[in-house]
């Protein structure tokens, strides 16, 4: 029997790795990937608690998280493609104008 704390510690480790990547990397694609990693760590927590408490609500919420992540990635990558084509930048530090 796998203890509950094992899953939660793994989820915390993945979330922290994703947070570190999202804060320190300067390529917007890598930042989006790190955000995906953090969302997945949260998903693992949801499913773990759903399993532990015998309530399927956590698994349903993790499906919602996946749907939101899909739409977020679609919009984010569209913005990335436009920024790279029009201005040739990938560094979020250089994205400092609202309109050009």
């Amino acid at each position, binding site marked *: 029997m796998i203890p509950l704390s094992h*899953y939660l510690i793994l989820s915390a480790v993945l979330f922290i790795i994703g947070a570190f990547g999202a804060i*320190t990397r300067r390529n917007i694609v890598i930042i989006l990937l790190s955000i995906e990693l953090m969302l997945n760590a949260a*998903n693992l927590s949801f499913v773990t608690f759903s399993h532990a408490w015998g309530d399927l609500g956590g*698994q349903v919420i993790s499906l919602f998280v*996946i749907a939101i992540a899909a739409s977020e990635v*679609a919009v984010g990558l569209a913005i990335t493609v436009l920024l790279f*084509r029009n201005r040739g930048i990938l560094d979020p530090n250089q994205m400092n104008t609202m309109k050009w």
Partner: protein
Amino acid sequence: MNNLGLPLFYLFSAVAVVSSLIVVTNRRPAYSVLALTLTMLALSALFVLLEAYFVAVIQVLIYAGAILVLFLFVIMLLGMEGTDRQINKEKSIWNIVRPVAQLVLAVLLLAELGFAIVQAKNLPQIVTHVAGNVEAISETLFTRYLLPFELVSGILLIGIFGVVNLAYQEQKKS
């Protein structure tokens, strides 16, 4: 299954942690995306261990199959290989400050992780069993979570509007 569960958990969690470290540290975005695919597959195996079968299948289909392929498409479309190194050649004070700040951030996050691990010792054991197969998930989704389900469809619609709007502006300009 019971005595095989713990070794399988350690195997898949080791794969997940190592590949997510590759995601964050690798210089080439394409390798990062492939490592994230490996993380997703390991996580879906962990979902199977948690008896969340439907979520595991959706994880493979949507994340590994759709989202990460979208990432790969964008990376290959843009040809952004090597743009990281070009940025690093600029000379500024930030080149000295940045590694120090990263180190401080890493220490802070690791301290937080240690706190979480210490706190996790007090948690109760898993007592109940619930199988997340399609039937049970759909019953919960369409009764208790019907309104959030409809709202998610609205969010997906707004996402479509946003992406089509961005693509249309691009077309109009060129």
